[in-house]
């Protein structure tokens, strides 16, 4: 891996609702994202997976500085976003965009698709009327929509076409980094495949860097170069996609992957069942946050919080037992 670093987050933390104190640790709030270190390299797709409430969407928004972090920093192409002024931030916004899950929710129903796409040019004061109209048509070509779509309203499109509009909008300013937040989750499988292929084609053509947030693990495996697994506001494992899915290291990743329904009725199952529910982000366990549900828990796990650290094979895992090789072995497809 010699590609440049596009995005680098250090100690990224977001506490919702709590009262902050000037000195160190906050109390009382929900620690949605809690000390996330993350690197996304230029041109790669980093998958971000985890269950609802784990903080993956909040992480995506923090990376774009759509919400302000409580602590930590995000550097985009080497510049710390958290130190930019409003004007500088606005300028950098064109280079970093987000595609949402629900194109119904993110498109103004009373705005034509052409206006929705060119809105970005208007806000960023790019070009004149004629050049904007031309750019809109280029964007429609790019995402595989007919040029006649420009004068139509969102309700005149199917779900898949509407997501193409969402993609055209996100790419209008030619960003280099795009957060795809459950971008294909609301689509039917037959349409989902079209959009995944489109996202991959666009990545190749425009040299895009993706953070692909999804709860759909087979989609994440398909599209990602590397995958980060989140649990309760923390990254617990980062690895190459093939490596992670074939041989997950963290007990939570193991449980998560083993819960994926089979692709054939005769496929053998090795279920690692999780006991209990996800703890609340208001009341995070001391020590390893997965310890209360971990089948391999030891006393040290309840005492000290494991840090995300490299294994000899190049992965990063936040688990005491994975770090010293004392976890029972597990293979998904054995």
């Amino acid at each position, binding site marked *: 891996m010699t590609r440049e670093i596009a995005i680098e987050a250090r100690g990224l933390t977001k506490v919702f609702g709590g009262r902050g104190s000037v000195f160190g640790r906050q109390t009382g709030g929900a620690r949605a994202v809690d000390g996330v270190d993350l690197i996304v390299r230029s041109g790669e797709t980093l998958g971000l997976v985890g269950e609802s409430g784990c903080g993956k969407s909040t992480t995506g928004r923090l990376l774009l500085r759509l919400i302000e972090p409580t602590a930590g920093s995000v550097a985009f192409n080497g510049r710390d976003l958290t130190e930019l002024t409003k004007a500088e931030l606005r300028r950098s916004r064109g280079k970093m965009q987000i595609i949402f899950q629900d194109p119904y929710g993110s498109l103004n129903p009373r705005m034509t698709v052409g206006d929705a796409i060119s809105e970005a040019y208007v806000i960023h004061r790019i070009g004149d009327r004629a050049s904007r109209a031309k750019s809109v048509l280029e964007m429609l070509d790019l995402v595989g929509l007919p040029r006649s779509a420009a004068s139509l309203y969102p309700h005149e499109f199917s779900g898949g076409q509407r997501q193409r509009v969402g993609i055209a909008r996100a790419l209008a300013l030619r960003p280099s980094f795009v957060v795809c937040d459950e971008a294909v989750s609301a689509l039917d499988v037959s349409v989902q495949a079209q959009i995944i292929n489109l996202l991959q084609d666009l990545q190749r053509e425009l040299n895009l860097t993706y953070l692909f947030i999804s709860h759909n693990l087979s989609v994440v495996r*398909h599209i990602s170069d590397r995958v980060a697994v989140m649990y309760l506001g923390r990254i617990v494992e980062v690895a190459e996609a093939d490596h992670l899915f074939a041989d997950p290291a963290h007990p939570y990743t193991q449980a998560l992957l083993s819960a*994926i329904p089979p692709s054939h009725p005769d496929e053998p199952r090795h279920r690692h069942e999780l006991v209990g529910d996800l703890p609340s982000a208001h009341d995070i366990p001391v020590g390893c946050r997965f310890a209360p549900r971990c089948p391999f828990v030891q006393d040290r796990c309840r005492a000290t919080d494991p840090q995300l650290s490299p294994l000899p094979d190049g992965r990063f895992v936040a688990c005491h037992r994975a770090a010293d090789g004392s976890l029972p072995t597990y293979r998904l497809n054995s």
Partner: protein
Amino acid sequence: MSGDMQRPILSVQGLTTVLARSGATILEDISFSLTPGEVLGVVGESGSGKSMLALSIMGLLPNVVRRSRGIVSLDGDELTAQSPDHWREKRGRDLAMIFQEPMTALNPVMRVGNQIAEVLRRRRGLSGYEASKEALNLLRLVEIPSPEKRISAYPYELSGGMRQRVMIAIALAADPKVLIADEPTTALDVTVQAQILDLLRKLRRDRGLSLLFITHDLGVIAEIADRVMVLYAGRVAEIAPVRSIFDDPQHPYTQALLASIPDMKGPRGRLVTIEGSVPAIGGMLEACRFSPRCPFRRDICEWERPHLGVVSGQQAAACFRPFGYEQPLEAVI
């Protein structure tokens, strides 16, 4: 289907539903049966009519939709021939349903124990004391941790998985013969989904519950179904035992559906896509509705509606291709 000697617990014949105002068909000529203890998976994308199928069987169609034809029989009792009151009685006792989002189906201002007990009192005639005792047993049956505590919880105090367990407990309270599950795990995380599927499997095994399991997720189908019915644009595209669906799908739509899911292992090639999208209600073809998207279409596909024909054994498909592009004999289901 023929070949199965067991008397069906649920039988649907020629079910057709239309929009009351325009007459546009939503479901067309749906026939299938469910044997005791069987899990029939119903797969379809949005607009396939799969949720409307569930409501038709429950006798709960919204006012704008009307059943124009067809028979629904439960354990030999022809519900469609009898009064709405009779159907309602059956719905409470022998037919139950669970939904995708339990939060909207549960009463938000009533303790979950009382919601279960209400069904027990009304449908099984238990006294207040017996009902609350039995409610506790049902919470145990659906494996809710510390049920003594949870019985007095309100729905908002429970997690999504726990709420779905409460919904299942309510559905089981009247001891139904058939449970219709409409995307019961779609809103849940994958680890919770696995737990709920385990629970439904256990209930089927221990209580002989018959299940009509509606989902868009073929992985869930692989995990739970004995047989599968694939719906496309309101018609049955294919119906077959689960292994035949995965190993030897006959309808091009079933094939494409399986091919468009990213694989969990092996190389990651380009995904197979189905061009176009599902037709809208009102814009449906009389001929094969998949034909505009089908890579194998020939003239006949654009002219005629294919009957559901038996391909082999228990597998039937509504497609001309397996029959040499000729109209098959209509399967007797």
